[in-house]
């Protein structure tokens, strides 16, 4: 039975975990946060009674209540440069729905180091993106986005612009769909950047090319060094 790590049990991780658990995929749930009332409009695994509880515990309870007896590992930890490789040990795939860019790049680097596929997802406003990545089979996260924004005031992508709850549920489900495809052996969507616009009701999937000078996956590139200074510059500490 494959084991999938879900990074971030927020608006994306909740629906992704729900769909994967219903497909009887074993999950390692990773998030250090506790449920806040402001989460409830989009984080579908939690109820009012969960406010204040560790997200991983509340999520695990909801997933088990939903039915299938999947193996769940609830780990109330953030993925950090020091912990990433340990937290991903033994997993077949990572679903990454974290809420900061530093963690996204860190997860991309850790998955590359371990050679495991990862499905990245993100949402802002009415728009969400999905990027499923298989190591050296098409574009990786750094092929597409290269590196963190510099801390020069240009980091528009770090601005919290709010997010519409239903959009995260759609994008989280799309992330789970890609994860299930990978687990079934179909990697044909690897390296495709999907963009969902909930306002326009549109979905567009664009095959991205691996970047010849990608710092992560170009032939001959040295394995990334997972050190805090590589991730903490723009969006706060990991």
């Amino acid at each position, binding site marked *: 039975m494959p084991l999938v790590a879900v990074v*971030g049990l*927020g*608006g*994306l*991780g909740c629906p992704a975990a729900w769909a994967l658990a219903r497909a009887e995929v074993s999950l390692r749930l990773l998030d250090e946060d506790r449920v806040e009332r402001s989460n409830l409009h989009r984080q579908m695994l939690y109820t009012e009674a969960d406010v204040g509880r560790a997200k991983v515990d509340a999520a695990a309870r909801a997933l088990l209540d939903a039915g299938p007896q999947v193996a769940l590992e609830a780990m109330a930890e953030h993925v950090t440069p020091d912990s990433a490789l340990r937290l991903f040990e033994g997993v077949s795939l990572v679903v990454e*729905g*974290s*809420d*900061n*860019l530093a*963690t*996204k790049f860190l997860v991309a680097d850790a998955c590359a180091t371990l050679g495991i596929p990862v499905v990245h*997802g*993100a*949402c*802002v*406003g*009415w*728009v*969400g*993106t999905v990027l499923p990545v298989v190591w050296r089979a098409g574009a990786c996260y750094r092929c*597409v*986005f*290269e*590196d*963190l*924004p510099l801390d020069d005031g*240009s*980091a*528009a*992508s*770090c*601005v*919290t*612009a709010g*997010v519409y709850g239903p959009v*995260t549920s759609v*994008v*989280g489900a799309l992330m789970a769909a890609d994860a299930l495809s990978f687990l079934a052996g179909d990697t044909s969507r690897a390296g495709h*950047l999907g*963009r969902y616009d909930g*306002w326009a009701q549109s979905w567009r999937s*664009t*095959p*991205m*090319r691996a*970047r010849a000078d990608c710092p992560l996956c170009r032939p001959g590139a040295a394995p990334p060094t997972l050190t805090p200074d590589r991730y903490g510059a723009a*969006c706060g500490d990991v």
Partner: protein
Amino acid sequence: MTVTVRIPTQLRPLTRGASEVTAEGDTVAALVDDLDRRYAGLRDRLLDARGVRRFINLFVGDEDVRHLDGLATALRDGDTVVIVPAVAGG
């Protein structure tokens, strides 16, 4: 050349909330110049001294301009340019 430009959520404060605008330019560089004339500050959010900012993607149709001719990529009348920044959130 009149080109349609799709604006991501984070940059809409600069376009007075518009999710889609039109601008003129024979190349991506000229288009960005015209965008900046119409919506002050947009150039700096898209480009730095090196070219397209490293966490920004500019697509002409379905193709990332980095895989075309970069800022010199030619535009045709009626093209659509899509700005896709790295985002976090969910």
